[in-house]
């Protein structure tokens, strides 16, 4: 008979493991993936495959030859980072650019800090911001959504995003009504479903929300972060809309355009770089919402959620220290 094992309690373990969590995130992204393939055709698939492949490849190479530690590509975290990176770029982005983005995502933002669990910033967002700043032209020429497996998209049929139109319009001194009348401006329902130009994963709010609800049910994310981001953006936009409806657009426009949903549901909720405690998560979400709306309304960029999340990521350790969970038996005085 083998020897008895001696260890401290508990002697049983739950069924949770890292791989399962990562797989759940991947499942949650499936609706958005399908929508992107539907609207941007095989190009969307190409971008996703390259991003995932490059991410896993870089993680493997770095772990094997630079860190010389255990290889953990099977835990799925590199795949998740790859998909998220793909979600954040236009469907017509060149492959080499994407590979460079994946290198920054995995090499700079993740592995240089020690790999999974140690990165202070969301790796996919670091990769995305790196691409946005390095290749601004390619990263902001968005293919027009063209449902049902359209032929290969070329630069000829690119168009601005809804937020881009808004920023441009406001900058040119147009009123909100005039901007909305622009024929390039997607309609309300299209914005909801994703029939508009934009990054792969950000176009369909509905698909993202379905994924988000799935993750909340499976307890992979807490509802506090996305809800507080969305509510903050909504409230702030509503306040300014009430002050001057012809200068500031209605809040629902902000919610369903740009990367807000993607950021709120998939990026800000990243376990590693978001705060640990529920109260901290709300503070984190409100911070992201405020910075986003500030950048959107007054900043140079039409879209601000990536920067907002990265800025708040930097505050995460402070938030963790300042906002503790509700302790049991804390005496009220």
């Amino acid at each position, binding site marked *: 008979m*083998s020897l008895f094992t001696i260890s*401290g309690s*508990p*002697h*049983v*373990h739950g069924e949770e*493991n890292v791989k399962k969590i990562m797989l759940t995130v991947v499942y949650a992204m499936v609706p958005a993936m399908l929508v992107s393939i539907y609207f941007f055709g095989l190009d969307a698939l190409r971008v996703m495959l390259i991003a995932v492949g490059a991410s896993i490849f870089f993680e493997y190479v770095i772990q094997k030859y630079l860190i010389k530690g255990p290889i953990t590509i099977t835990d799925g975290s590199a795949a998740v980072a790859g998909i998220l990176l793909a979600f954040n770029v236009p469907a017509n982005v060149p492959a080499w650019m994407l590979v460079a983005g994946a290198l920054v995502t995995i090499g700079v933002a993740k592995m240089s800090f020690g790999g999974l669990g140690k990165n202070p910033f969301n790796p996919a967002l670091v990769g995305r911001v790196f691409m946005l700043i390095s290749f601004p032209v390619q990263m902001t020429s968005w293919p027009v959504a063209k449902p049902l497996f359209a032929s290969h998209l070329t630069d000829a049929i690119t168009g601005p995003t809804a937020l881009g139109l808004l920023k441009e319009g406001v900058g040119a001194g147009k009123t909100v009504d005039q901007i909305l009348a622009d024929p390039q401006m997607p309609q309300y329902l299209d914005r909801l479903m994703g029939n508009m130009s934009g990054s792969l994963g950000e176009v369909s709010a509905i698909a993202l929300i379905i994924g988000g609800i799935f993750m909340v049910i499976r307890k992979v994310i807490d509802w506090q972060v996305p809800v507080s981001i969305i509510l903050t953006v909504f409230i702030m936009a509503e306040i300014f809309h009430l002050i001057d409806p012809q200068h500031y657009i209605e809040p629902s426009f902000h919610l369903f355009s740009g990367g807000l949903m993607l950021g709120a549901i998939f990026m800000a909720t990243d376990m590693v770089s978001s705060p*640990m405690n529920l109260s901290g998560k709300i503070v984190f979400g409100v911070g992201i919402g405020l910075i986003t709306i500030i950048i959107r309304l007054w900043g140079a960029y039409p879209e601000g959620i990536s920067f907002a999340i990265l800025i708040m990521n930097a505050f995460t350790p402070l938030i963790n220290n300042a906002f503790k969970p509700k302790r*049991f*038996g804390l005496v009220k005085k």
Partner: protein
Amino acid sequence: MNKLKTFTIGGVHPHENKLTDQVAIRTLPLPKQLIIPLGQNLGVPPKPIVKKGDEVKTGQLIARGEAFISSNIHAPASGKILKIDDALDASGYRRQAIFLDVTGDEWADDIDTSGTIEREIKLSKSEIVARIKECGLVGLGGATFPTHVKMMIPDGKKAEYLIINGVECEPYLTSDHRMMLEKGDEILVGVSIMMRALDTEKAVIGIENNKPDAIAKLSQLAQSYKGIQIQPLKVKYPQGGEKQLIKACVNREVPSGKLPIEVGCVVSNVGTAFAVYEAVQKNKPLIERVVTITGKNLTHPSNFLVRVGTPISDLIAAAGGMPEDTGKLINGGPMMGKSLSTPDVPVVKGSSGILLLKNEESKRPTPKTCIRCSKCTVVCPMGLEPFLLSKLSKLGLYERAEKEQIMDCIECGSCQFTCPSGLPLLDYLRLGKQKTGQLIRNRK
């Protein structure tokens, strides 16, 4: 159906695996030799008052607890004292124990061994406490705190509620469940006795609703007892924790570092209530208890009425023998029990169950890095941050750990159970508690 009550912060749902909840309690035959460890209660172990060669009767006092927090030990069977020597007990260490060669089961004269239920409480408050002390009662839930000490309410405090733990939130264990089904009346009389001793009007028996038969049985019986309420609770671990149970039953929070009496509650276990009944009504000392012997590949997992001092190997033999691929032997449940190195360890007053895990079940997941998922924080019933505390303990930053309230940890193991990275969080928390405790004591 009403929303079932439970505690508010944290908690997990391990697989219940109650293999023996429909197996009636059987009495285990007396072994040839009993090894009765002296350290069976929290606090100071009692001093032996017998010597080698003495003849004792069942129920005769053999060790007297002289310190304030200590409790008496009685002979679990009649026979001859073989020796007083060190013996391996559940702690994994050899400690002083009384070895008794069993010759029979001849009870001491003043003990009522009949099965008739005595409902009428004749003794006064102080007599009850004295009798409980005399009979060597300790909390049978596992903490083994001497019951008579618990019954003495400090001056200026009032026990408003007596809360009885019938939760049995540990997976696998069913001894309390069977007690409630088979000894319902005795338990309720015991609760009434404790209520008189504590001068309490209200008693709440909390039972998780995975035991509907016990809830039904006790609810029906409780109608004829004044002031006893049966409270069904939602199944959630660690509801059997004293502080969690108070929160679940009467929605009060025991302040950090304080005892339940601070919020007017006294908590006891159904097993203890039964022992109180036997002590007060029958003058029967605590020499036997119900122990669940369980495990997935045991042929006959059972609930046994066992005399204190019986080797665990006897229980395993009665349950069908030690299975071939046993990887871990646990004294207690899978969440808080202690792993044993050998089955040659005696049953003590605090043993509620013996669990045999298969080799594959007893393996821990390989620890990976923390992914900061905060699941440990979410499940912690005390609202602590296990990831942080275990890290602080690993780094030896015990002062910071104290500020983060490491001493509030109840060691329930929910954090480690749930950790997706399979980290040994509780191991480090225990280490941290131990070192922080030393730090605090040194300061005084």
